[in-house]
């Protein structure tokens, strides 16, 4: 026949089972017959495999096929441990009893997700990542040498347009001379929903910029304006980034020395701090309910700044503005109890020789007066 099972194989099998020399005709008759039967069993077993929707033929399938043909199934080939079929194997009962229990397999569960919404596959964790991200992951894995374990980063892919936009945006914001572009970008931020993809980058830019440009009030003001626009934009979802927007705002509010050490900027810094305080107020008002720890944490920071006599007066001014911005209840709780001791400390500064310090102290006084009365 087709010769897959040859007479040679039959002869070898006979030898294995200690059957003395087999005649030529016997092997010739057995070989095609054996082959046909093997084909039959394989055909039936593949049917079971197909209907279990698998691609791998298992011992279960072959046993089902044998059972179907009224042949005894082959025992002892289920488990990984092949030696079960060996009749001479000796097993120690104690060993089995004292052996560790195998792990219980987890129960079957089901979950739902949207594979597509109106024909578009959403980028949720249950769906496979988009093709480009996969390719970049593969590249990272290829480049890493065998020893180091490189964990692939989840790469975000921005279109060229967005990248360009981001660059122009940062350039314009960092430009200390030119003011013209800034307004345009700010209006873009408040009206264009497609910039949402750049939001994390914007937020990072703001915090970097604030720490880098503490001496330029203009830039700080711009940053505060950006934060204002971000909070108030109907299209941008800033809640995940609140924790990143707080530090720059608080820096603008409580910073030791904002702006250069000269006359004109010293006036401006007060208005800057007031602006920061009002932004803080808006943030707390909007998100205070959703994040219950937000307001207490902010208040704590402000309180610490207020009560610390070591901190410079500018900080005090900022903290006063901040606390007052948070509402009358906060004022009652925090400032009023500490007022006498604070005023005492302030007295010294008011009468101090240092003019700048005097100005600062006076500012604090004014702030308190304005707010409390």
């Amino acid at each position, binding site marked *: 026949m087709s010769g897959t099972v040859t007479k040679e194989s039959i002869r070898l099998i006979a030898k294995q089972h200690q059957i003395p020399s087999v005649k030529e005709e016997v092997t010739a008759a057995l070989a095609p017959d054996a082959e046909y039967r093997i*084909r039959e069993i394989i055909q039936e077993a593949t049917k079971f495999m197909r209907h*279990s929707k698998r691609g791998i033929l298992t011992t279960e399938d072959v046993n*089902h096929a044998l059972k179907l043909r009224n042949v005894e199934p082959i025992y002892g080939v289920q488990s990984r441990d092949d030696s079960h079929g060996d009749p001479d194997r000796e097993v120690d009962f104690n060993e089995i009893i004292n052996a560790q229990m195998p792990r219980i397999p*987890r129960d*079957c*569960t089901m979950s739902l997700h*949207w594979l597509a919404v109106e*024909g578009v596959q959403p980028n949720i964790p249950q769906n*496979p990542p988009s093709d480009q991200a996969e390719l970049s992951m593969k590249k990272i894995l290829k480049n890493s040498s065998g020893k180091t374990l490189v964990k692939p980063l989840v790469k975000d892919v921005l279109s060229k347009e967005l990248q360009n936009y981001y660059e122009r945006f940062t350039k314009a914001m960092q430009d200390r001379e030119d003011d013209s572009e800034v307004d345009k970008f700010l209006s873009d931020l408040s009206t264009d929903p497609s910039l949402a993809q750049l939001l994390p980058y914007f937020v990072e830019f703001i915090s970097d910029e604030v720490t880098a440009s503490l001496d330029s009030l203009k830039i700080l003001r711009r940053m505060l304006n950006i934060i204002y626009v971000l909070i108030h934009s109907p299209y941008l979802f800033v809640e995940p980034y609140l924790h990143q927007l707080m530090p720059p705002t608080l820096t603008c509010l409580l910073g030791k020395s904002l702006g250069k050490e000269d006359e004109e900027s010293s006036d401006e810094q007060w208005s800057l701090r007031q602006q920061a305080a009002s932004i803080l107020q808006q943030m707390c008002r909007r998100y205070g309910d959703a994040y219950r720890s937000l307001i207490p944490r902010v208040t704590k920071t402000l309180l610490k700044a207020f009560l610390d006599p070591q901190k410079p007066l500018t900080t005090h001014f900022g903290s006063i503005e901040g606390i007052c911005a948070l509402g009358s209840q906060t004022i009652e709780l925090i400032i009023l109890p500490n007022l006498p001791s604070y005023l005492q400390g302030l007295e010294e500064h008011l009468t101090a020789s240092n003019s700048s310090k005097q100005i600062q102290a006076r500012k604090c006084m004014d702030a308190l007066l304005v707010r409390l009365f």
Partner: protein
Amino acid sequence: QKMSGRPEESRNYEKIVLNYLKTKGYLKSESAFRDEIAARAGDEGLVAEMRVNTSNIVTAHNPNESLPDVYADSYVTFRDWVHSSLDQYQHELNAVLYPTFVHLYLELVAKRFTEKAVEFMERFGGEFKSEYATEIAELEGVTTIDSIKESEVAMTFRQNRYILTLTNFAYDLLKDFLHHNNLMTLLALINKYFTIRPSKNSSNGKFSQAEMTTLGNRDVYWGLYVEQIPRKATYTAAEEKAMDHKSPNPIPKIPEAEDKMLRDAEHRVPLSATSLPSICFYTLFHTHQGLTCIDMSEDASRVVGGFDDSAIRIFDIAECQVNGQGKRTRNEASPYTSTDLRAHSGPVYSTAFLGNDWFLSAGWDRTIRLWNVDTQTNLVAYRGHNYPIWALAVSPVSSFLSQFASNGSAAVNTQIGSLSSPILGGTAGGSQAPSFFASASHDRTARLWSTDNIHPLRIFAGHLSDVNTVQFHPNGNYVATGSTDKSVRLWEVQTGQAVRLCMGHVAGVSALAFSPDGRILASAGEDYVINLWDLSTSKRLGSLLGHKAVVNSLDFSADGTLLASGSSDGTVALWDWDSKRPQDKEDTPDDASVSHQLIKSFSTKKTPVFQVKFTRRNLLLAAGPFDQGHS
């Protein structure tokens, strides 16, 4: 059987036989024998088989045992062997069977065994009537030697050699079979009248042409029968009173189920190549490669899965969301749990929902079981098959329609009716009208069942190999089956007869779907191709290529514009099956691997897709197990 080891003896024995035949006057057999020896002179295998005991040959030609009986017995043995041979070679060997039958019949007629010939024809001719109706009819008229000369068909057969092409393996199988069973008469016959050309490749499409045309001539009705159309509802006296009679046309009461269907049709999302559906995916975790089938209920709130270890699990989404206080407190991230049901004694290969509260399951243990979801019990076991059941399908003719049809003479479902309780939501009449379902099995048949009878109502037999999948036509009057013999057949429910045969797949058929208007049938198979068939002509309208693994499930959208397919390569594909090739692309050759009708393919994370289903509102549901290495 005495086996001699020396070649000289065999040649001697040949001479003995020839002499015997000559002396006894069996001229024909002698010449046949001589031909045979001449033809196989150089054949090693044959020479080995020729060492047959002389006495055996004598009995074979014993005048006491008449020639017709020898013919009949040989034919029976041959036929049984062909039917039980390997699936791969079924088509080819069946092709040998018909000419063998004809030649044996004509031999009997030629030897003047007229009565026996008629008996022979009656006994064995029936199975060829569907394929070769005209030839058989003519041959039935040929009963004497003279009529042979008058009949064209008979003369063609006797004068020309019948040419057959078989693959090498099939040819060897045939040869060995005939030798082992000493069917000398058949061997002689084949030598005289047949030319068998062994070839390397198999040519499947060429077979069954005759059958296709015969079946194709039968009528298939795509609409409803007159009796099926629901008659006007009759109202009770109380209802009549309650109705407002001032208006000339009182508004008829719409039964709840129909009302629901109308509302679904209203809210249906229109789909097209540009307006794609949303796909909700059900993923089953930790199935340990044991999941074999999934089905979703009509309202998409319940999922039932059948497993290799004979377990059936129901996931009820609505239930999981409500805890003790009746509040929805299920955490968004936590997965749904299931209840584990056991009743089968082997792997469960198919599950199907009947409405929202009932489902059927079938598998290895040859039974089909009806379950109720609310009580989580197995109520009925349907028995009839003798071999594992591969697939189930539920008739779209739902119970409320059949209620109208059987108005008055309630088809009282005694088994289920007696259990009728608030859980069943029985109708005002107190009886649940039966639903119909069909099963496809390894025993090469599909059977039709009704929920109120344990035994099948119809058997659809005719496939050459086991039936892998079954589906109902939207009008509920026809059933389509797909099989490992690479054909798709359409059967009439009322009579059980085959009405269409569609050949064209290169491997077994694993999934079927009817378009909602009932004119198109889509079939997909293990050759990864989806074929579309026009039911009126049983011609293939087109093939959709693109999948890289077996296609497990097909479904048309509720308005018939899109076709969705789910495959083991982990993708759900949407096809605009009706689209024409765009004008500008007509010159460029079609991309060999992906059809232009593929709109989009959505891939999952390593989850082979077992089932896709459109709800009536055109939301696409898909389900599969998440298993590493489940390919």
